[in-house]
């Protein structure tokens, strides 16, 4: 399974839609402080089903919706879509191409889609559960986590091995 593209709109500082094509190998994202690099990582965490506002650096779930800038008004919805190639059948779905979409509205409603078919958040979370790529996997190392890894308590470190087992 590999990523093909990430589409982000209305999510944090990405009020206008952007599309990131992801190829094989290494994609490096650069830019000034506060430009939105970690917000891209947050978008991926979020579309995979992250439910903790704190894990996304917010205090409430609607903190992920673009809340306006000096020159631009807030918007009412955040949407992220992940396009994946599943030709090796890593994901337990009978599709070669899979598009995962998550939306969240200021009203508090969330919408979830797999290949444009509405589903529950749970369906998206469970899709990745066994791949190690899910948000529970060690696949996403957020800014500042490196410092925490070594100062983690021995019990926490053990949990990491248990999850890999």
């Amino acid at each position, binding site marked *: 399974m590999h*990523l093909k593209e990430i589409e982000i709109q209305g999510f944090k500082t990405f009020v206008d839609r952007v599309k990131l094509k992801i190829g094989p190998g290494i994609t*490096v994202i650069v830019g000034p402080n506060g430009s939105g690099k970690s917000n891209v*990582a947050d978008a991926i965490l979020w579309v995979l089903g992250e439910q903790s506002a704190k894990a996304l650096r917010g205090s409430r779930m609607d903190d992920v919706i673009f809340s306006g800038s000096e020159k631009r008004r807030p918007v009412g919805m955040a949407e992220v879509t992940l396009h994946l190639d599943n030709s090796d059948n890593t994901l337990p779905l009978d599709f070669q191409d899979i598009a995962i979409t998550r939306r969240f509205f200021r009203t508090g409603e969330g919408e979830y889609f797999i290949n444009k078919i509405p589903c529950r958040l749970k369906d998206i979370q469970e899709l990745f559960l066994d791949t190690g790529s899910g948000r529970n996997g060690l696949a996403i190392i957020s800014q500042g986590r490196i410092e925490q*890894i070594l100062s983690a308590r*021995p019990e926490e470190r053990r949990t990491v091995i248990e999850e890999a087992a």
Partner: protein
Amino acid sequence: MARKFKDTLVEVKKHFSSIFHELFNGGEASLKLINSEDILESGLEIIARPPGKNPQNLALLSGGEKALTAIAFIFALLKVKPSAFCIFDEVDTALDEANVERFARLLRKFAEQGQFIVISHRQGTMAAADILYGVTMVDQGISQLVSVRLDQLPA
């Protein structure tokens, strides 16, 4: 259950040790159950000794040595449980130039098996990119994306 954990631990230990040795260009590291009698519950300890130095309390290591040891640990876990794609957000900030180079070299090796999305402001890591994206804020508060050609990078 304890069998599976023990096997995984042995695997991670083996890779952690060799990846540490590669990233530090020497030295040795290991993982140790604090209470070896209690496989089901015991916490895990990291032992790390950079090359030429005597074994020491992990806390006494430098900021960069700690970061590099944590990176070795993450790669060891990835070796045992590979991920289709992986996201690293500024894991290389504490590393000096030489260590960024070693990190980048290891990253390239692992990228043969999976995709990596790496956020960084370090030259050595940028040079390892197959694709480079720049995030900019031409209008303050709003992010835009540009794809950057590698030869356009400032020195």
